[in-house]
C-alpha cells in the first residue's frame, strides 16, 4: 500500500510537472501531425493506412526516449531526484513510476496520427486489440532506452544528444522506411537486435496485414528486450546512482 501511494504520487507529479506542460502537449500533437503531413506530401499515392504503423511507431519512439532521459537528467542536475533515491521505496517501484508517465505520454503520442487518419479512412478493420499492446510494448522498450540514456548522461543536453544518437539509426534500420530485406546484408543483423523492428512489424500486421514475423514472436521479442533493458538499467542505476 505504501509503495503504491509513492508510485501513484511520483506518476501524478511527473504528469503534472512535465507531461501536461503546454510545450510538451503541443509537441506531442504537432510532431506526429507534421510527420503525417510530410509523409502524405512526399508520397501522395500511398494511402494513409500504409503510413499509419510507421507514424505511430515514430511518435512513440520520439515521445518516450527523450522525455524520460531529459526529465530524469533534469531532476538529477537539480538534485530533486536524490529525494526519490532517499525515499523508503524500492528502486524498482521508483523506476517503474518514472517510466509510467513516459509510457502514457508515448501511447498518447501514438494515437495522434490515428485520430488524424480517422478523418480520412475507415479504421474499423484494424486489429486494435493487437495495436494497443504493441504500442504499449514499443513505449515500454523506448522508455527503458531513455532510462539507459538517463543513467549515462549527466546533463540535459547530453541526454538529448544521446537520444538522437540512438533514435535516428533505429528508424532507418527497423524496416520502417526501407524493408529489412532490402538493407545491405551486413546491416540486417542489427535490425533484428532492435525492439522497434518487432514493434513496427506487429503494427504493420495489425493495421495493413503485412507482417514478416508472427505476432507471438514479435511480442516475445519485445518482452525479452524489455526484461533485458530493465535488468541492465537496474544494474547501471545501482552502480552509477548509489556511489
Amino acid at each position, binding site marked *: 500500500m505504501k509503495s503504491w501511494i*509513492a508510485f*501513484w*504520487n*511520483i506518476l501524478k507529479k511527473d504528469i503534472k510537472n512535465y507531461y501536461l506542460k503546454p510545450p510538451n502537449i503541443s509537441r506531442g500533437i504537432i510532431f506526429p501531425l507534421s510527420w503525417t503531413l510530410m509523409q502524405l506530401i512526399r508520397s501522395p499515392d500511398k494511402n494513409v493506412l500504409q503510413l499509419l504503423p510507421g507514424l505511430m511507431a515514430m511518435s512513440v519512439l520520439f515521445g518516450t526516449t527523450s522525455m524520460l532521459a531529459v526529465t530524469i537528467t533534469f531532476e538529477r542536475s537539480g*538534485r*530533486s531526484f536524490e*529525494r*526519490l533515491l*532517499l525515499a523508503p*521505496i524500492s528502486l524498482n517501484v521508483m523506476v517503474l513510476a518514472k517510466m509510467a508517465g513516459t509510457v502514457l505520454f508515448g501511447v498518447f503520442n501514438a494515437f495522434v496520427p490515428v485520430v488524424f487518419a480517422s478523418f480520412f479512412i475507415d479504421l474499423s478493420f484494424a486489429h486494435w486489440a493487437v495495436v494497443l499492446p504493441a504500442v504499449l510494448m514499443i513505449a515500454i522498450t523506448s522508455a527503458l532506452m531513455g532510462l539507459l540514456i538517463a543513467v549515462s548522461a549527466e546533463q540535459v543536453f547530453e541526454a538529448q544528444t544521446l537520444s538522437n544518437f540512438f533514435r535516428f539509426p533505429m528508424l532507418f534500420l527497423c524496416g520502417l522506411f526501407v524493408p529489412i530485406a532490402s538493407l545491405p546484408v551486413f546491416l540486417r543483423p542489427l535490425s533484428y537486435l532492435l525492439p522497434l523492428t518487432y514493434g513496427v512489424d506487429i503494427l504493420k500486421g495489425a493495421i495493413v496485414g503485412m507482417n514478416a514475423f508472427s505476432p507471438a514472436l514479435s511480442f516475445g521479442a519485445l518482452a525479452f528486450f524489455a526484461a533485458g533493458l530493465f535488468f541492465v538499467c537496474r544494474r547501471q542505476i545501482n552502480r552509477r546512482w548509489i556511489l
Partner: protein
Amino acid sequence: MVTVTNLKKTYGNFTAVDGISFDVQKGEIFGFLGPNGAGKTSTINMMIGLARPTAGEITISGIDVRRYPKKAQAIMGIVPDDSNLYNEMDGFDNLCFCAALYGMKREERESKAQQLLERFRLKEAGKRPFKAYSKGMRRKLTIAAALIHSPQILFLDEPTTGIDVESSRQIREMIVELKRQGATIFLTTHYIEEAERICDRIAFIKEGKIVASGSLPELMHSVSHGYAVRLVTDKSAQSLTGELQNRFKGSKVTIGQEHSVVIASSKRIVLLPVMEFFHEKGIEVYEAKELRPSLEDVFVKLTGIESSVLRKEKGGKR
C-alpha cells in the same frame, strides 16, 4: 541510536573516509566539524544510504544500513547541503509529495504539511512555487520536508551554509527545539561557533579521519591542562608581580595591556584571596574572568587547521 564502526570510503586511489568510528546517542545533537573535503558529506551519504561504504558498519536504531538501506531510510529525515525540493511545485505540494514518498495517506499528509508550514513560519508562502523562495525559506522548507514523516533521526548537512544571518538563527533555534522534543540530530558544519552553540557532542574530521571527539568540556579539557584568571584593575600592577607569585605559590603571573593581570595555575584559582591582595594594595578590581579555551582553540590545536580556513569556505563567519 547510531553506531558507525571502521567506516571507510575510497574513490579509486583517493580515500575520502578512512576507517572512522563513532556513535550518536538518542536525543543528542552530534556535530561533525571539518573543512571542505574532510569527508563530512561522504560520511553522511554512507549513513543515509546514498553511497556504499568500501568497508565498515553503520547501524541506526539497530538496522544495518548497508544491508537494509530502505528500512533505515524510513526512520531518517534528511536535509542535504543544497535544497532538493521541486522548483515547479509550491511549498505545500512539495511537503505533501515528500509525505507520499513515505506512504502517508492524503488526509494525514495534508494536515502534517499545514502544521509544518505554520511551525516553520511559511504558511503565507505555502502556495508560492518553491523557485520563488529565498535561500533561507528554501532551507526551512527542506527541513520541514525532512520532518514530514516524524523521523527518529534527522541528518542535517551544513544546515546554515550560504543563508542569511536571521534565517540561520531561526534554523539553529529550530534544531535546538527539535532536540528538546526528543529528536536525535546528526549535523555536519564547518562553523565552529554553530557547533559550539548547539551540539552536545562533536567530532573533528580531517582528511577522512576523526582527530578528536567528545562533549565540549571533554574536548576543551583535552587541550587545556590548567586554569587562568584575567583581572582588569584601575592601575598597573607591574610592580606587584613578584609579590603576587610569592603569595600564590605555583602560579604564573603575567601583566598585560590596559591594566590587566593574568594569573595561571595548575589548580583552580580561588578569587577571594586574590581580591583581598589587590584591596590591601589599594588597587581596585573592575573585572575578573576565568579564561577557558574556546572550541576554536581546541579545533586549531587538534587539527592544525586555522579556523580562518573554515570561515573562508562557504560564506564566512557567523
